């Protein structure tokens, strides 16, 4: 309390300095006068009296100084004085200061923007009570442990010979939950709850149908999360009963967008897949779901009502049919309980249930035993659930960390620039500093002053950087779409206090980083020599300065080579032969099954639509496929070759595709053997299939393939291979072509559902969008047409990540090069300034202009070439490091190297091109100061000092 009071008093002392100073003088004066008066009264003559009064008082200036020290806050005052001094230094050379602040701002801005991504994707915790006590359950099992029927994403860290999954089946969850409840107070969890995504629901508000994402949750989901809806009530255990009335909780975003944030919404009905649900609540705005980072459900329903939406394809399972491995499991730890306790308490129940649920062990190859070995038994794993499901987040880490590394390097180059600048300036200020040291200024005091200056620079840079970051963050959002792997869809970036704190920390750190060494060196002058020699003391470049330049060149070289590698990867991928003609192809998706179309009605719907599409003007040919092409989608099956039985079969897989009979003609995929599908290949005729060339090469090498029968493992269907077509890319440009089997759509019965239409047009495909929408609306005005675009655009979208890398690396590499060039220019220009006299002497002795040019250019280029050499060595070391076994297959460092396509980490062409580019830019940066050196007039130069 009294300390605060003293502080405030002293603070006041700082601001009223002038009047307080006057007051002190007055007070002392009046003291001395009174003393003099008294002494005179005692009989001393006036002069003697004044002298005696002064003597009794003691040193007036000393008293004043002590008084002043106590009056203000000396530390703060010195700091402010240094700050003012620093500001004056900056103003004195505005261009250099601008360049310094701007380069720092670019570096810090880029780091801030990227950190906002790190924060939003990798760090942000769920906005629920005590999120750090939430944990996610996962499991691992030997490869021979079989799980049929999975839906969802898993990315679990397990040993190479194990499979890991973060998905659970409903019946198994129920058993685990029962076990947890039975344990009562003994349980280490207060709640065990489940949630599963339901993608692509057709929701209808008013008369506009739309496709939204939802989730189904166990009744204790909200209680377990300790999440209170911002409006209405949460789903409870009573809602999660088969007989209960169907209810739904809306996400805040969906409530805002579709209901205009209408508070009356509670109690209204919402149609989901044509079923009516009562809206009971809205979740808070900050809560976007516990699922994967790229999945924000708009609606949440109780698990018990999931069958309402999904009908026969319910993932919960029925009496006859087992459920699907689909649910994510989370628990809330009681205070003091550990992950391990939670895991061990449920592991037994899980293992028994999983083994019970498991079909026969699968043969990975012929040597696999028929029985599951105990080491392959499924085992529970746990991971932190504080940020929601971790699997997809792990996929984003490589890109984010990779880019973060890049921007950190850019900032490092900016720091090196600044350090060099300050070194040069410290050289100029050498005389001033040595004079101050000589008259007794403390070294620490001087270092503090120089550091204050560099901190001023870095804080200014950081402030401008925040603006750049704001702009950069929006640019990042604009650059990224679903496929770029940088920013998951639906994740919002904000420059919140965590991000700004990071910026402040980075600014201060950089200020120290580039300020400390120059300050240290500037104040460690040898006084006698530096006072005598004055400015010649710093005529040559210091080794530190050279080292910084070499480092800059090396780092920009590495960044540019990285950019070059990705540009090459992108161009390689863009030139990949897809195996079909993607020009003039309009694509869109329909999901009539979500609107209740089934079996015969579904077939008829598609037939009617094709009848109209085929007649439509501008359409050369219309077809569809189950799986969208080059869109990172897939569909696969296990199957049996002729003569194999389920018990003895080895593990083999094929990709699937279901198409209209004119698919191959429309897509211009050449036939190699046999016949194509016809409209007569329907439910009444024998089941047929067409395979790609890789299928033949892998499963029927050097055999007649036509007429061979294969059997699907699930569904137990047998099809006859009637034709062979050329290979095409399927999921992505990058993939190795896999065995692919096509089936005619009319023989697929109830597996026909959503389809991706491909319409070959006569002219520009997008011109037909409106008429296609109208055609669909004519048949059913409740059916949304989604994912509309051209195949070229879809193909390009899958290269989003590569394009993002190429663009950002190119941008930052260019920035790094620019910074390095500025640094080189600055240091050389400074050095030329310092050597004016020397150059003058040389010229006086007959040196030619070209000698001088060569002298200066060589001074810079020597460093550049050294930097290139160091860059190559560092690049090689980096390559060895990234490829070493130090990084496991699932680490982001390893995944980074796997981004490249058709180009080696050390690509000679890229190295040479980038090296030449760098040399060219460096030559320009050296030539400018060299030209100035060549213009030196010997007469003027010799008179210079």
């Amino acid at each position: 309390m009294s300390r605060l009071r003293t502080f405030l008093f002293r603070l006041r002392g700082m601001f009223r300095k002038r009047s307080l100073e006057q007051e002190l003088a007055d007070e002392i004066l009046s003291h001395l006068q009174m003393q003099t008066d008294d002494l005179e009264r005692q009989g001393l003559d006036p002069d003697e009296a004044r002298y005696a009064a002064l003597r009794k008082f003691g040193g007036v200036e000393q008293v004043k100084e002590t008084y002043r020290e106590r009056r203000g806050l000396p530390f703060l005052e010195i700091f402010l004085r240094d700050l003012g001094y620093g500001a004056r230094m900056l103003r004195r050379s505005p261009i250099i200061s601008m360049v310094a602040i701007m380069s720092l701002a670019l570096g810090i801005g880029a780091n801030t923007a990227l950190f906002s991504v790190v924060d939003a994707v990798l760090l942000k915790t769920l906005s629920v009570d005590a999120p750090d006590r939430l944990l996610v359950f996962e499991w691992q099992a030997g490869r021979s442990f079989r799980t049929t029927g999975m839906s969802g994403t898993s990315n679990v860290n397990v040993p190479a010979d194990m499979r890991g999954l973060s998905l659970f089946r409903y019946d198994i969850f129920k058993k685990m939950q029962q076990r947890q409840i039975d344990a009562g107070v003994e349980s280490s969890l207060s709640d065990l709850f489940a949630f599963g995504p339901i993608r692509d629901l057709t929701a209808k508000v008013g008369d506009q149908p739309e496709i939204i994402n939802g989730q189904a949750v166990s009744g204790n989901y909200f209680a377990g999360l300790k999440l209170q809806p911002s409006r209405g009530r949460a789903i409870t255990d009573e809602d999660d009963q088969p007989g209960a009335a169907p209810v739904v909780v809306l996400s805040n975003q969906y409530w805002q967008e579709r209901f205009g944030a209408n508070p009356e919404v509670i109690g209204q009905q919402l149609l989901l897949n044509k079923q009516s649900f009562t809206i009971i609540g809205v979740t808070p705005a900050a809560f976007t779901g516990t699922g994967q980072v790229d999945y924000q459900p708009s609606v949440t329903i109780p698990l018990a009502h999931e069958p309402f939406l999904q009908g026969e394809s319910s993932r919960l399972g029925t009496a006859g049919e087992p459920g699907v491995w689909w649910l994510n499991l989370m628990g809330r730890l009681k205070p003091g309980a550990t992950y391990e306790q939670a895991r061990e308490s449920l592991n037994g129940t899980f293992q028994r249930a999983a083994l019970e649920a498991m079909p026969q062990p699968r043969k990975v190859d012929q040597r696999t035993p028929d029985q599951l070995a105990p080491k392959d038994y499924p085992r529970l794993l746990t991971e932190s659930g504080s940020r929601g499901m971790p699997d997809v987040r792990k996929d984003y880490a490589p890109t984010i960390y990779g880019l973060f590394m890049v921007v950190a390097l850019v900032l490092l180059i900016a720091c090196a620039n600044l350090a060099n600048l300050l070194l040069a300036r410290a050289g100029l200020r050498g005389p001033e500093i040595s004079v101050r040291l000589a008259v007794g200024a403390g070294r620490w005091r001087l270092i503090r002053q120089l550091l204050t200056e560099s901190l001023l620079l870095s804080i200014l840079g950081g402030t401008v950087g925040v603006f750049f970051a704001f702009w950069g963050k929006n640019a990042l959002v604009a650059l990224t779409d679903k496929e770029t792997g940088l920013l998951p869809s639906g994740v919002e970036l904000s420059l919140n206090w965590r991000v700004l704190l990071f910026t402040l920390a980075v600014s201060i750190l950089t200020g120290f980083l580039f300020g400390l060494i120059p300050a240290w060196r500037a104040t460690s002058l040898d006084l006698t020599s530096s006072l005598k020699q004055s400015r010649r003391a710093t005529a040559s470049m210091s080794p530190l300065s050279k080292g910084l330049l070499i480092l800059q060149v090396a780092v920009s070289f590495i960044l540019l080579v990285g950019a070059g590698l990705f540009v090459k990867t992108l161009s390689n991928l863009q030139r990949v032969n897809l195996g079909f003609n993607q020009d003039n192809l309009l694509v869109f998706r329909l999901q009539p099954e979500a609107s209740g179309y089934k079996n015969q009605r579904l077939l008829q719907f598609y037939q009617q639509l094709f009848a109209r599409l085929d007649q439509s003007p501008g359409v050369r040919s219309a077809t569809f496929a189950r799986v969208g092409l080059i869109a990172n989608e897939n569909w696969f099956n296990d199957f049996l070759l002729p003569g194999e039985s389920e018990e003895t079969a080895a593990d083999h897989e094929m990709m699937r595709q279901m198409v209209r009979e004119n698919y191959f003609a429309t897509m211009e995929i050449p036939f190699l053997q046999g016949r194509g599908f016809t409209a007569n290949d329907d439910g009444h005729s024998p089941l047929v299939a067409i395979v790609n060339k890789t299928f033949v090469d892998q499963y029927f090498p050097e055999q007649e393939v036509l007429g061979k029968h294969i059997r699907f493992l699930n569904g137990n269907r047998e099809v006859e291979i009637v034709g062979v077509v050329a290979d095409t890319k399927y999921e992505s440009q990058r993939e190795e072509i896999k065995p692919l089997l096509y089936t005619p759509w009319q023989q697929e019965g109830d597996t026909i559902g959503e389809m991706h239409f491909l319409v070959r047009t006569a002219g520009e495909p997008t011109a037909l969008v409106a008429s296609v929408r109208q055609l669909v609306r004519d048949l059913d005005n409740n059916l949304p047409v989604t994912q509309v675009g051209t195949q070229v655009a879809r193909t390009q979208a899958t290269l989003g990540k590569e394009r993002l890398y190429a663009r950002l690396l190119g941008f930052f590499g260019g920035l790094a090069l620019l910074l390095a060039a500025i640094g080189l220019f600055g240091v050389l220009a400074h050095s030329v300034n310092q050597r004016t006299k020397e150059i003058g002497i040389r010229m006086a002795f007959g040196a030619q202009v070209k000698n001088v040019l060569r002298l200066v250019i060589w001074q810079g280029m020597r460093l550049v070439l050294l930097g290139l050499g160091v860059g190559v060595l560092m690049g090689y070391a980096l390559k060895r490091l990234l490829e070493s076994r130090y990084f496991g297959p699932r680490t982001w460092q390893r995944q980074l190297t796997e981004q490249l396509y058709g180009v080696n980490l050390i690509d000679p062409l890229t190295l040479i091109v980038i090296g030449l580019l760098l040399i060219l830019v460096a030559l320009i940066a050296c030539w400018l100061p060299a030209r100035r050196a060549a213009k030196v007039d010997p007469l003027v130069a010799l008179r210079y000092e």
Partner: protein
Amino acid sequence: MAKSRHEVLPGTLSLLILKTLDTLGPLHGYGIARRIEQVSGDLLELNQGTIYPALLKLEQLGWIRTKWSVSENNRRAKYYSITRKGQKQLIAEEEDWRRTSAIVTRFLSPSEK
């Protein structure tokens, strides 16, 4: 060394100032200095100036307050007076001082073997 003069013990100057103000009421710096010299019988060697930083400190702590006024012989002077908080502090410090000096005195007096 006929007459030995002592320096003010560190930390006791504030006590002396507070006690002076408490006894005599509002007083200017010169008056405080004179009073200390008089009471100590000119035994204390006091650079009068040193009381000013001490007064500032006491003011910052809120134990005394200041006011410009006119002195008995018509000089403008800054008058200091003790606050209630200062009086409390004075009582506490006096108590402290007595205890300390009692202990020291007991050590120095002939022991009662």
